[in-house]
């Protein structure tokens, strides 16, 4: 079975050693997903596979047959950016921009995790309702390093869109 990336079908590589990250960047030219460490230690390579965010550097492309992958390119484009992408621009939620696609993929998937009511290490209760607080978001985004130190702005950018989405829903 082929792999589907941003709604496009692709053949998997022959060499089983190719990581999903290198497959995206080198094989099919989707360079929006970044390599920061290649060892699951920075989050720059975060993509969404079947709705769940993962580190694409620690996943062998060959094991993704039949999977649906969303990368930063699938989240929005310069002419049609997502609300979160715009919010990052507005809040200056980045500096060099290298960790940014990973932050945005991560935060996009995080919204669903909140919607599912999944707790985090920062949740007071494991079984009660979970409020979307900055502290919750910080914990849940801790898998995405930003060496430029844009953290405070990233949290503002995320809180803004999450709150706006909540308001739109109610």
């Amino acid at each position, binding site marked *: 079975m082929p792999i589907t990336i941003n709604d496009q079908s692709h053949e998997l590589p022959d060499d089983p050693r190719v990581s999903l990250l290198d497959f995206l960047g080198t094989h099919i030219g989707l360079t*929006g997903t970044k390599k920061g460490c290649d060892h699951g230690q920075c989050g720059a390579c975060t993509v969404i596979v079947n709705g769940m965010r993962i580190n694409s550097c620690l996943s062998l492309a060959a094991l993704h047959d039949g999977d649906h992958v969303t990368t930063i390119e699938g989240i929005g484009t310069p002419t049609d950016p997502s609300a979160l992408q*715009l919010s990052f621009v507005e809040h*200056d939620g980045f500096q060099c*921009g290298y960790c940014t696609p990973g932050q945005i993929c991560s935060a996009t998937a995080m919204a669903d995790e909140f919607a599912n009511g999944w707790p985090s290490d920062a949740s007071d209760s494991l079984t009660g309702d979970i409020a979307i607080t900055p502290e919750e978001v910080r914990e849940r985004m*801790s898998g*995405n390093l930003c060496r430029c130190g844009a953290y405070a702005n990233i949290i503002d950018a995320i809180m803004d869109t999450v709150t706006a989405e909540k308001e739109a829903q109610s």
Partner: protein
Amino acid sequence: MNAYFKQDEPDTRNLLDTGKQGVIGKALSRPEGLAKVTGTAPYSAEYQIDGCLEGVLVTAPFARGRITAIDKKAALAMDGVIAVIDDPRMTTRPAQGTAAAAPEQGPGEVDYFGQPIALIVAETFEQARHAAKNLPFDYEADEIGSVPLDPESAPRETDDGSSMSKGDLAHAMKTAPHTVDLRYRTHGHVSAAIEPHAAIAQWDGTKLTVHAAQQMPNYNIAELADITGLDEENVRLISRYVGGGFGSKLGVAEETAAAAIAAMQLSRPVRVVMSRQQVMQAIGHRSESRQRVRLAADSGGVLTGFGHEALVANLPGESFAEPVLQSSQFLYGGDNRLLKLEIARIHRSTAASVRAPGEAVGMPVLEAAMDVLAEEIGIDPVELRLKNIPEKDPDTGLPFTEHGLARCLKEGAEAFGWDSGPRQPRLKRDGDWWIGTGVASAARVHNVAEAKARVTLNPDGTASVQTDMTDIGTGTYAILSQIAGEMLGLPPEKVLVQLGDTDFPRGPGSGGSWGAASIGSAVLVACEELRGSLAEKAGVNSDELDIADGMLNGQPVSDLLGGKELSALGHYEPGKIADDYTSSGFGAFFAEVRVNRHTGEVRVSRMLGAFAFGRVLNAKTARSQCIGGLVWSIGTALTEALLFDPNDGHIANADLAEYHVPVHRDIPALDVLMLEKKDAAASAIQAKGIGELGMCGGAGAIANAIYNASGARIFEFPMTPDKVLQAMEDN
């Protein structure tokens, strides 16, 4: 047209304030923002070049010695391997910032563990990576024990340029009513830019074109020319987007040199991306330091003696010595002064610039010692600092340019809600957590550098700015569009800024926080020239110009241009202002921390930085530079430390799992006050550097807050739980 301005005197014309567009200083979003958030901004390794080969560096598994033989045949027999390159031109260390010449070359001689010794080139990355891990080679390693690795016991030299002595510090220490004499340690740091070092080199037989992650193409082109033996005319370096630098990409590093040489040998494009572990081990790190601070004060808290000494380390042959004492030269008074910087020669990886070289570790130590002194005197620590701000540079006697320390301390204290009451430790507790506050001053010397930029008014009335200056996240794209927009009467979105290409005029490079002020001044100079010709065309005096939104005194600028472009090369150079003043950015940090009384874990719960750095060019990107600095302050205070193996000097924790840069959860909401006051003697745009100021002392405020919270006085950075516990237990 060319326009040249050498600044010998303060520039009080404040030209930017005469613009009518009203965009300078505004909190505008970055023009390249959408490209970055959609993943469409291309970083160096991401250019899709047909037939590009993949190179992976091989590194030395010993501290010092030489490679005696490489079994290239065996490597070439491996799947996909095309070449094994160990050309003597290959570099073994990164070039230091502003070197403009090749660093150490010759990969056969090994000076530190993890030094590159060869490059494997293969068809695919997977093939090259595997071959690089399995290249057979022979070597002679110098015996363990014969290679100096420990700065304490290694041969040392004194760095005279950073040392001075005046009056009699020993006597002041003996006679003053209040003294402290304290010894500190700081550990090594790495820049850890999230984009690893990367280059793609192309060679057409005459000309070398390299996409590389670099901060200073203006120097890097000379380094690369020197390394390869080419003339600069035949080298083109492109660094349009750089995924963070923080000093690590100041000079051409091993991967760029190797890619270039490989491309020239093989006549095929070659990409070399360092692994994270290689970046940690073979790119420069901030030296660990041992420091001693001696302070003597009279009964009123005025300093009579000031001593700051430091021991740092580097490889033999490196001129760079972490300038730990840079701010100590002028921050506080005290007639009896002694500064001494020593450098130990050891065989660990290259010590080089990491964000705010010097101040990053010198200031937190000094500011921690000031806190001990304040307690000894029984004076509020904000007050102690206010009492010791010198009128003129206490070392050179030079006047200061705009000096914002007192403002920052006062307004910062006010905004933070600083309590100037009694400051005994352990007054406040929330469950298992002690809570306390701390303050520190910030200072970072300000420099400006020579810079050139071309500004062009296009026939349609839009403009473009071109320079080889880079934007490493600092906001160069944004601020240059604002400076040109302000001066040429254009909304910034009508100004196309093109950076990071040595085919453009030479900028100052991004480093030492001098980028914005220097390149901004060059753009201003070019714009001034363009305004002159526009005035001429419109038949008005320059000072009568009223240009905004593309209209000049009621007439479209495009009409005046008459279908032709108008272009000027601006050339700015600091003249006597560089010698006649001591110029620095200043600030104050206030931190609140929580210290777990059982485990010694520390969390920063609140932090504020108040900064004075001349003119604010873009309130949004400037603030971002400041919060980035605060994040680094937190990392320096609490988590960041390189662990060197005592037997071979290698970095044990050479990855991002075990070298702990702060994560989201370590960082609370951050407050920044930008106390703008234009500094006419700082640059032609009255701006000073801000990229590093935000971390020059901040870790000291956190250290002081840890003491105030828990009573743990710690003399070592970072203050990990083990050190906090030990200091609490000693209590």
